[in-house]
């Protein structure tokens, strides 16, 4: 059993240093939270580096990172674990959360607001000074080892009233706010991630920044750093710049014809 667990955990260990450029002191705060056994809440728009930060932190701490992408059908059993039948025998299978608690890994619940509110309550005893996970089905109470860390992320930009974090959940975390990096930093990230030259990287970052200014004009969210990198990849694959920006970036942002026309004008001004 222990061997099997180790095997499963090894899959989650990050051996190569992930590329992450800090904006401010997020790494220090992340490390301090880890030392003091505090859970982390990462908030920020899509594609701005939340998941990458967690990968980097896991690498720095040399701990496995178990990521769960939350969705509205996620049940408590999906997190904690369940009995399965094999060869006419029932055996218990740990869920990702239990696995992380037992092994002292980092459990990262991505887009936690997507999960049903009753599901997220299961993390409450893990996020205060108790740091324990009761597993009713097997009648056990796991105390989290000092290495265990819980992190959750969400995007406060969604305007839906129904997708917000309950205060009782929110107030248990050390919060790190992520945003799109400043132009200079974003340029470095794009260059590093995609291998594009500096001149083009500057222009792509500029285009993304322009789309972000349209947020108050009805664009739900501007182009993310991830989207820039994707677009650059299209360009490197031989697609001409204008088509790549259209398909890789702006068409993914909206269907509104006026906004699309305006963003088209931006592309033509830059390239």
């Amino acid at each position, binding site marked *: 059993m222990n061997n099997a667990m180790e095997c499963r955990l090894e899959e989650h260990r990050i051996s190569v240093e992930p590329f992450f450029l800090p904006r401010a002191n997020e790494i220090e705060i992340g490390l301090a939270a880890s030392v003091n056994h505090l859970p982390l809440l990462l908030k920020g728009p899509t594609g701005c580096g939340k998941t990458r930060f967690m990968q980097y932190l896991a690498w720095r701490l040399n701990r496995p990172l178990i990521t769960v992408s939350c969705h509205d059908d996620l049940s408590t059993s999906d997190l904690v674990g369940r*009995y399965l039948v094999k060869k006419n025998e029932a055996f218990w299978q740990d869920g990702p959360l239990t696995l992380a608690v037992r092994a002292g890994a980092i459990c990262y619940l991505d887009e936690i607001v997507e999960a049903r509110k009753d599901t997220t309550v299961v993390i409450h005893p893990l996020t205060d000074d108790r740091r324990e996970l009761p597993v009713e*089905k097997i009648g056990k109470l796991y105390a989290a080892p000092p290495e265990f860390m819980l992190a959750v992320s969400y995007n406060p930009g969604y305007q839906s009233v129904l997708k917000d974090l309950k205060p009782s959940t929110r107030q248990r975390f050390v919060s790190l706010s992520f945003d799109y990096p400043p132009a200079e930093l974003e340029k470095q990230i794009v260059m590093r991630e995609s291998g594009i030259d500096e001149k083009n990287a500057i222009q792509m970052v500029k285009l993304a920044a322009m789309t972000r*200014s349209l947020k108050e004009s009805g664009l739900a969210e501007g182009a993310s750093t991830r989207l820039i990198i994707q677009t650059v990849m299209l360009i490197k694959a031989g697609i001409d710049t204008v088509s790549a920006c259209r398909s890789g970036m702006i068409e993914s942002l909206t269907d509104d014809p006026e906004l699309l026309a*305006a963003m088209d*004008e931006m592309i033509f001004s830059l390239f």
Partner: protein
Amino acid sequence: MKIADQKKRFFAAVLPSRPDVWEVDEIFDQLAELDEATAEEILMQVGAIWPVSHSLCFAYLTHAARALSAELFSTELLGEWVRQILGLYESKGLLGARQFMADVDKFFLGPMRGEAGVAFTDISTRMVHYLRGISGRSFNFEEAQLPSTDTRTIYLPGSLEIFPSLEHNIFLYKFLISLQWGHVESRIYSEMSAPSRVRRPFFDRYPDGELAADLFSVLQFIHVFRFLETALPGLVRRGRELCVELIGKISLGGTARQRSAAFRHLLLQGVSDKENMHGASANESQLPGKPLADALHIPVFEGLPKIYEMFSGLSGTYTLGPAALLLGEFDFARAGETIRLRREEDKAQFVAMFAGLLDQQAARKDEEDKVGNVPDSVQQSLLLIGKQRNDPEKRSNTPILLDNEGLEVPEELAALIKAIEDDLGTLPEAYVQAAAGQAGRGVNRQEVEALEEITDSFVPAHVHSYDEWDYRRAGYRAGWCSLTEKTLPAVRSGFVAQTLRKYQPQLHKLRRQFEMLRTRYRYVRRRRHGDEIDLDAHIEALCDTRAGIAPSDRLFIQLLRDERDIAAMFLVDMSNSTEGWVGVAVKEALVLLADALEVVGDRYAIYGFSGMRRSRSELFHVKHLDEPYGGEVQGRIAAISPKEYTRMGPPIRHLTKKLQATQSTVRLLVVISDGKPEDYDDYKGQYAIEDTRKALLEARGTGVYPFCITIDKSAHDYLAHMFGRGNYIFVDEVLSLPSKIAEMYRLLTS
């Protein structure tokens, strides 16, 4: 007989108005000359125009009869013609619409034939977004003969017909807009409005001030052109040819030859591609080559005397022709005034926000010492911030922290500080000092006296009284406003039916989208009863049994409809500024929204608000939360009309109270307004914004989610502060309002 019948129907269509019979007779005399079907087509459009403006409707009937009897266009184009008339009425008023109607060939048929002229109104939405994107801030647009800007508004010609192709003319607009933005970015206006320069008109120091001003425009144009070359290379690559063509139009005929040739050469030098020198720039002028090239590469103010000297030796006059569009005009006095006003606004806003923050901080830090002064530690840390922020390298990455405990500055204030820093280079210490001075001053003496004068001894039972937030003393004026709830008398009209007809295609789409919200059936697993067996649950139960645990009896899958437990209240601004097209669009939006909401089944209410002074704030009931949507409610929607002022605080507080009383889990308050809150008394500017903001914060505090939809030509900076980032959208194209509101509601609640 037929005419009499049509006239009767006309009068029925415009109810409850009673137009002048003589005027109507005159129009019907003209219509009588047309065949019956054509007259019928013309009259069909009355329903769309009459509610917007009666005078416009009469003008339309006259011009339509004339145009169709002269067979200028066919009845199939009538709908499009009317759409354009209404669009123009919205942007340019009755006069603009009349001009449009008067020359059908030039304004309507010409563009349809693919003639190249383009009106700015046709591309304005796209350009607003474009400029917002490249500049990161919002500008207004206004019409003027030559392009110019006062750093807040960009003035442009109403239409352009310079090039033979439409595409090029549209591009020219975009290029001119980018140039004007470039002028603002070059900080030329901030420099020229500095007190040292304003004192003495700059160009007067040259013997020929006009020539100096023109040469300045040319140098500044070249300077911005080069800036755009790096900032927007794609634009300049396409724009260069266009510039060369425009510059080529500078006339070289007659006695004007010498100076004109020199201007032409200078401009061509300026826009030439450095790597690929333009052939046309061969030096026809008598300007010396190298000194000229050198003068173009130094700052404008240093280059001007040198260039002026070269030009003053040349003879003749010059006319720039269409190239003047590229150069535009510079009104430094106007820009200086705008900059001064903006800085004052920024300062006032900064001082108020920062002082508020300091007060909070002071109150938190030292309960006993809260009135009188700001604790020394805070003041010291303030000065520290001032100094830190003045170091540009540190500025970009350091979060602004107040005091050592690290109270982070709110997002809006941080954005404001950044705007001030971008403008002035640093955050002036005087601003910080002013805020520190204002903080902790507590209640303003004069206002206390004013407050004491108020003796509200009698408040009738149906009148609700509400507190109002006074940001200057960081406290409430107790029972300051009285709000009366009234029911809007329903009117009988074809407004709702017409709207539903007008938006038929959109409505179809909306209904479908909203149906998807409603019919979110989902399979719920692990139910005691259900339609199907839940295999997972069964296996689990089996496992549990084998493991010796009592199995669950929840073994079925049930198909359930998701309950949307939402109560939404729509609060509509009925101030007199909504008169005309905005008011109509809001009403149309309500009709579409009500229709869509009936499909989903959410509980919703509609109220309008207006009033005058704090003693008479009025809330008009259109539909209560659980009132059925029917003829009566439709009549009230049709009756919504502009009234008086926009005091937003009391109605927001009133509806918050109403929403609190509902049992729904999600409580939404949607405010639809057309701009700043304002009343007849001192409820305006910062005060009104702060009170509205406070009312919305109170709403949020009680679990009501407020969202605001603002209809305006451009987004203003105060919106984010007043509504909170992400809690509002602004709609600049009134025509798209009905679909935007419904779409926004859908996004908010899904």
